[in-house]
């Protein structure tokens, strides 16, 4: 089982990192032929950085649009962020003090995450407009995330697993020195689902995470009159 999971995590990591690198490279190298920021837009690069920060940290556009989706979406993402940070403890031998400090926050953030996911799923089922645009994969994604959250929270709050052994297993993976993984069913489910999520990430709508940074309506500077913006393929068409 240890070998199986070790292999699984190597494959999942390679897929996640390789897949994302490939998609990001694709986004970065695909030209943007025209200036299409949604205006009013910032007129400087600094302004764009600020706009992007508000978008990524506060979900500004979503807030303008729909307070319920914003509330559930933000609770889920912020909860997930804290939970992920908390999980760093399994990958470092010595915990820095800030990581120790954040542990309880990360622990209870699981509830924000699960509540947000439940809210989003409820809207998907109950609001006719959102039900209409939902594909089976959208339900599966929510189910996957909820199961990951529940199995993880289960180990934190209900049936503790041997986290010292878990930590040794992951540190071992990092050093290519396999250590035994505890055969706790909750842990095995949790890890299996996480590896699954890592593998489908670069092939799914989770690409919204890197995608938002490349969205020309949000990341372009509003200065088309002052600077001539020209894509490579479009420059070929200029004949003076």
């Amino acid at each position, binding site marked *: 089982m240890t070998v199986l999971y070790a292999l699984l995590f190597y494959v999942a990591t390679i897929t996640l990192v390789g897949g994302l690198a490939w*998609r990001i490279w*694709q*986004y970065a190298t*695909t*030209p*943007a*032929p*025209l*200036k*299409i920021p*949604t*205006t*009013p*837009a910032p*007129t400087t690069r600094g302004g764009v950085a600020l706009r992007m920060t508000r*978008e990524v940290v506060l*979900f500004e*556009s*979503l807030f*303008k*649009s*729909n307070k319920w989706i914003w509330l559930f*979406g933000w609770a889920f993402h912020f909860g997930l962020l804290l939970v992920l940070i908390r999980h760093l403890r399994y990958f470092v031998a010595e915990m820095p003090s800030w990581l120790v400090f954040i542990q309880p926050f990360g622990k209870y953030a699981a509830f924000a995450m699960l509540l947000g996911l439940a809210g*989003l799923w409820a*809207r*998907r089922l109950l*609001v*006719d*407009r*959102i039900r*209409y*645009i*939902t*594909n*089976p*994969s*959208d339900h*599966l994604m929510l189910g996957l995330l909820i199961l990951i959250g529940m199995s993880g929270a289960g180990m934190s709050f209900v049936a503790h697993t041997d986290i010292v052994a878990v930590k040794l297993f992951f540190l071992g993976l990092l050093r290519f020195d396999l250590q035994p993984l505890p055969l706790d069913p909750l842990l095995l489910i949790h890890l299996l689902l996480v590896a699954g999520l890592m593998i*489908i990430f670069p*092939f*799914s*709508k989770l*690409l*919204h995470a890197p*995608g*938002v940074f490349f*969205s020309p309506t949000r990341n372009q500077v509003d200065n*088309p*009159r*002052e*600077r*001539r*913006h*020209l*894509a490579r*393929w*479009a420059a070929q*068409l200029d*004949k*003076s």
Partner: protein
Amino acid sequence: MADFQTPLFREFPAAPNTLVAGATEHLSPFIAKPNHNQQLGFPGELVENWEQKAVAKLGELVSKSRGLRVFLDACVKCGSCTDKCHYYQGTSDPKNMPVARQDLLRSVYRRYYTVAGKYFPQLVGARDMSREVLDEWYSYYHQCSQCRRCSVFCPYGIDTAEISMAAREIMDSVGHGQKYCNEILGKVQTIGNNLGLPGPALKATLEEFEEEMQDDTGLDIKLPIDQEGADILLITPSADFFAEPHIDGLMGYAKVFHEAGVSWTLSSYAAEAANFSMFIGSYENMKVVAERIRKAAIDLKVKRIIVGECGHAWRVAYSFWNTLAGIGSGGDDPYAKQLQQQLDHSYPIPQHICEFTHDLMQRGKLRFDKSANDHRVLTFHDSCNVARASRMGDKPGGQFDIPRALLRAACNNFVDMDPDTIREKTFCCGGGGGLLTDDLMEIRVKGALPRMEALQEVVENHGVTNLAAICAICKAQFAKVLPYYKFGMDMIVSTHQVIGDALVLTGSNQEQALQGEAEAAE
């Protein structure tokens, strides 16, 4: 009047409608004739193997546009945009929800260009390219006015306009174009304007307007055309030469130019600001049309270029002209320099007529008799392309503040509509994006609903009599749909019409009358 029902005003416009599946699936514009398509470089009719060719074209477009690629990948189906489209609000058709409209194309992209769609099509809603899909595209991508309202509310900035442009480009590339846009683009490329108005006819029309202004003001106000060596080239939508209330706007610009004492000219070769190539997503055609303006500017040796009241044209001019034809500043390549060395960069290039008038006003060069507009209570309709795809002035949001500042300077009674329906949240008039054609009247009337509801509210509560706009399409659309909602068609006015009516020209009849009144009062 028509074989459809004008929607009733809703009690709570902000509450989302219940879906009515297939409510407007019967709506499709006329298909372009072979010669309409061919003159733009597209096949005349639906080609053989069009399914494969359409899929290949989709791949090509995705590889050429980062926006399209990101927009097709990033949607998480959160539902934020679902109630934002005026066509959805006016029809309740689920396929008029922005995300559902995008999915018509996204489903095909997923089938052919994503791993998930290739191997698990049902799971991710991927579809094969088929006749049914093509018909759906043709119908629903012509029920999108590319107004970008949805993109304001999307957490990833996904812009349905870009997707609808891509879909139309794909359909054109396999010979399935829209008559209205393609026929008009043919005219602008051969004759120089959307109307197909030849130079001599245009000159005769302008002379009539000069006479009218002479009768009105007692002044010799010119509408110069093809004047080599003029300082300013005015590029304005050709509707300004023949339609109401556009003509009154044109005379408003002429009065401002006259009072400013600048030398300016129109061009018969480029007598059109509109560039419908944007609506059909064709970069190449957009460049061809923009290059007519470049050529006119070079031939007439002008130093400045000013654009008249037209929404999508201002987007093309402000956001794209520098890219397409080097009309702007800051170009360092030979192509851009050829024109830019001739231009005077102490002014914005291109400059919007509202920016020009506002600048004069700021410098105290214009006098207004606000009482000339006392028979009006005005409100202002932000045109979508000006609001969400361009700017005026130095600061973000100038596109909202500058036209309002002009109107407030020219009248005593100005009221804004509901804040959720103006500025960046403005609702489209319902006729933009290549939909301003009689064969789409039903969707035009229904799509106007949210704007009409906001208008009704200020009419009832503030006695608003007139709606001012800065877009040729908005003006033509409102003149047509206002009566469906029991408003007068002459409620719609041009912004520079209001300005022209209040502007006190030096030496004019109006100035004398005002002086007479002042003396009588003493």
